[in-house]
């Protein structure tokens, strides 16, 4: 967009990780974390579209009060399969496995993750788990809800529950291995001078996420294993008819699945913490508070699970404690939002595509987070429990938060991953379309829920139709907002302008090497002797004097 005619003409490096070796074997047997990241990118995108097709069918079905498209039984399958595909196979691996794999070693100045072969193994485990789940989807589907509540899942459901829980069980080990790899990498592989408080905030977010992977995932694994055994051998762990306790299942399930929400949103917060100082041309405000709040969210996140179970008849005191603990999570989340706002204050802001996503994230996360407080409130939750208010709330966190962060991060690091720039104007248009489409889809659902429309029903009273039609219309705009980046990012891989090592420019270590990086990431092992996000003091990037006009970011349409 801007016309900086002085920008030097960039050329691609002669040899980089994409052309270092050739052939299908060099991809399927690679141990290069950057190539594994791309393998994950392709596979999570596939599952995003699987889940997206189910979402589209749900929204078309809800166009009319009596339901438009499918039978009630098939509607149950649609929302279940949408949830399972999106949560376990897109959202949870999205930022950690794609961007985390690509960036964690680069940001700390390492040649690779600590266990490159285990890294590849975790991708294959993901694929095997994915095949089990696709088998379940295509042989009878799945109708238990993504939560697999017993005894519906273990006794009464006639759908293909066993392969689905086995698929999620297997997929869990992919998360565990990725988490272990990142924690070890961050502990032992940092470059000389890369102290803990010089780490990019994205790394802190990945570290916090990895802790949840490590400590939460095994619990869902054993729980779903028990459900599978119960279903196959008619055992009674969670079946009240045989003396088992279905509420115990819910405790075990949410012990993982609530922290799993932070698996989705923490890495997105890490992405936003990278983007905002870059395009505000200012050091991040409150570095140690943002870093610490990531850890705090991971820790407190483990202590709030029973707020999903306020209406199960748990004791009042237990509900009270979980309600208060749930409010506590708002504190570290708010610390982040205030620090991002303070970073923007008096910054020289440019509205490049990643920045649009980051700003969109802040706004949508704010709404999602604050409505979370409504739901943590015991009295109010009785009214809005299991309504579309809950659906809108968690989509604001997971789509408005996590997916905006993911797409924003993809744009931010695309020049590093591919060495090419995407068309900036089109990308900005897509970001705005996505933002509008998202709000039109999900804001009406807050109102629907508040008015009492229950979630997971295949029909609704006629007075709710206007809001449902708005939501469906929004979903079609949202779909366009996702298709556009798919198209122009793919286009840019071949036809985009060459980006150069540091197009924005940004201060992280990953921007100090070629784009795309060499197979070993850096030509010489970097030594870090500067503070993070030091945008006031970087003459090498042309950012020395805050009063002088900073160099404009390089764009694909320049």
């Amino acid at each position: 967009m801007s016309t900086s005619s002085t920008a030097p003409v960039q050329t691609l490096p002669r040899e980089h990780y994409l052309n270092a070796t050739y052939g299908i074997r060099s991809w399927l047997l690679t141990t290069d974390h950057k190539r594994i990241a791309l393998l994950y990118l392709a596979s999570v995108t596939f599952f995003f579209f699987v889940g997206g097709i189910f979402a589209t069918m749900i929204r078309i079905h809800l166009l009319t009060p009596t339901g438009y498209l499918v039978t009630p039984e098939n509607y149950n399958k649609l929302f279940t399969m949408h949830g399972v595909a999106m949560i376990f196979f897109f959202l949870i691996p999205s930022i950690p496995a794609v961007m985390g794999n690509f960036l964690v070693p680069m940001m700390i100045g390492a040649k690779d993750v600590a266990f490159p072969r285990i890294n590849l193994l975790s991708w294959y485990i993901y694929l095997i788990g994915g095949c089990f789940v696709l088998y379940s989807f295509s042989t009878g589907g799945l109708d238990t809800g993504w939560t697999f509540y017993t005894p519906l899942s273990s006794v009464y459901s006639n759908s293909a529950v066993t392969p689905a829980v086995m698929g999620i069980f297997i997929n869990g080990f992919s998360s565990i291995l990725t988490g272990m790899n990142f924690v070890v990498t961050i502990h032992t592989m940092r470059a000389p001078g890369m102290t803990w408080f010089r780490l990019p905030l994205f790394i802190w977010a990945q570290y916090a996420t990895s802790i949840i992977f490590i400590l939460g995932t095994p619990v869902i694994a054993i729980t779903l294993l028990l459900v599978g055994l119960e279903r196959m051998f008619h055992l009674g762990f969670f079946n009240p008819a045989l003396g088992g306790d279905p509420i115990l299942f819910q405790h075990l399930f949410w012990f993982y699945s609530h922290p799993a929400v932070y698996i989705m949103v923490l890495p997105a917060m890490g992405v936003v913490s990278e983007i905002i100082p870059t395009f505000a041309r200012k050091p991040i405000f409150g570095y140690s508070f943002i870093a610490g709040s990531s850890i705090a969210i991971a820790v407190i996140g483990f202590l709030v699970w029973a707020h999903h179970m306020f209406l199960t008849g748990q004791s009042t005191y237990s509900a009270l404690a979980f309600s208060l603990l749930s409010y506590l999570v708002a504190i570290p989340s708010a610390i982040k939002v205030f620090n991002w706002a303070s970073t923007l204050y008096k910054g020289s802001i440019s509205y490049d595509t990643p920045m649009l996503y980051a700003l969109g994230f802040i706004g949508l996360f704010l709404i999602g987070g604050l409505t979370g407080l409504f739901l943590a409130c015991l009295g109010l939750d009785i009214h809005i429990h299991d309504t579309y208010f809950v659906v809108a709330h968690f989509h604001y966190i997971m789509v408005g938060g996590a997916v905006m962060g993911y797409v924003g991060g993809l744009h931010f690091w695309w020049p590093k991953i591919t060495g090419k720039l995407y068309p900036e104007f089109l990308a900005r248009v897509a970001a705005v379309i996505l933002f509008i489409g998202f709000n039109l889809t999900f804001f009406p659902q807050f109102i629907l829920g508040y008015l009492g429309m229950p979630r997971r029903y295949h029909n609704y009273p006629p007075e709710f139709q206007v809001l449902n039609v708005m939501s469906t219309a929004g979903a079609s705009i949202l779909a366009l907002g996702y298709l556009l980046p798919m198209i122009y990012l793919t286009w840019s891989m071949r036809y985009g302008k060459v980006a150069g090592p540091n197009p924005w420019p940004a201060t992280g270590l990953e921007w100090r090497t070629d784009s795309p990086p060499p197979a070993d990431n850096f030509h010489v092992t970097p030594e870090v002797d500067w503070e993070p996000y030091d945008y006031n003091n970087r003459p090498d990037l042309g950012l020395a004097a805050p009063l002088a006009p900073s160099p404009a970011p390089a764009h694909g349409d320049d």
Partner: protein
Amino acid sequence: MHRTGELYGHFQTMEQQKDSATLGMWIFLSTEILFFGGLFLTYTVNRHTYAAIFAECSKSLDLKLGGFNTVVLIASSLTMAMSVWSAQVGKKKLVTLFLILTLFLGCVFLGVKAIEYHAKYVEHHIPGLPFEFEVGSDVATNAHAQLFFSLYFGMTGLHATHMVVGAGLLVWLIRQSLKGRFTPEYNTPVENIGLYWHFVDIVWIYLFPLLYLIDRH
């Protein structure tokens, strides 16, 4: 991934490589604690609810075989620790010897476990198959007894699965050790698989009283 001696190319020093491997194993073991933790919680809740029936069911387990197995497993931890020590001081033949002893004791444990499982099969104590339990023939008691045995087979079965994996790792270690690969400078695999073996032992140390020793004075 190119390798110089025992050092992989993405590490700078042997020390860094060893620290990474050891930290990775400890993290893996912490996930294992949570993995077994879900089962232990399910056990605790049900034992609290059905204390009397769980006590009766516990008495039907073979205390002698269970106790024998506990001794065998503790002995295998000793031999494992000895093989780590031997590797650290460079006694290559002793490493192999102690690894073989550990593998032998592990197999003894699994063999005894198979005998116990077979006894339960003969007594119709396996849930999911035709099930009978002597104390109280009413439907509810029968169901609660099945819960105990579901947990018994679930917990000891998961433990035995870990033993089988451990035995496989030991076979690999023995082969490497026969090649003389482990020296005072490089013995991380012995140490880390040792950590895993000890962890599996500790799980049994908890399983034995929880399953065999309810209400036995």
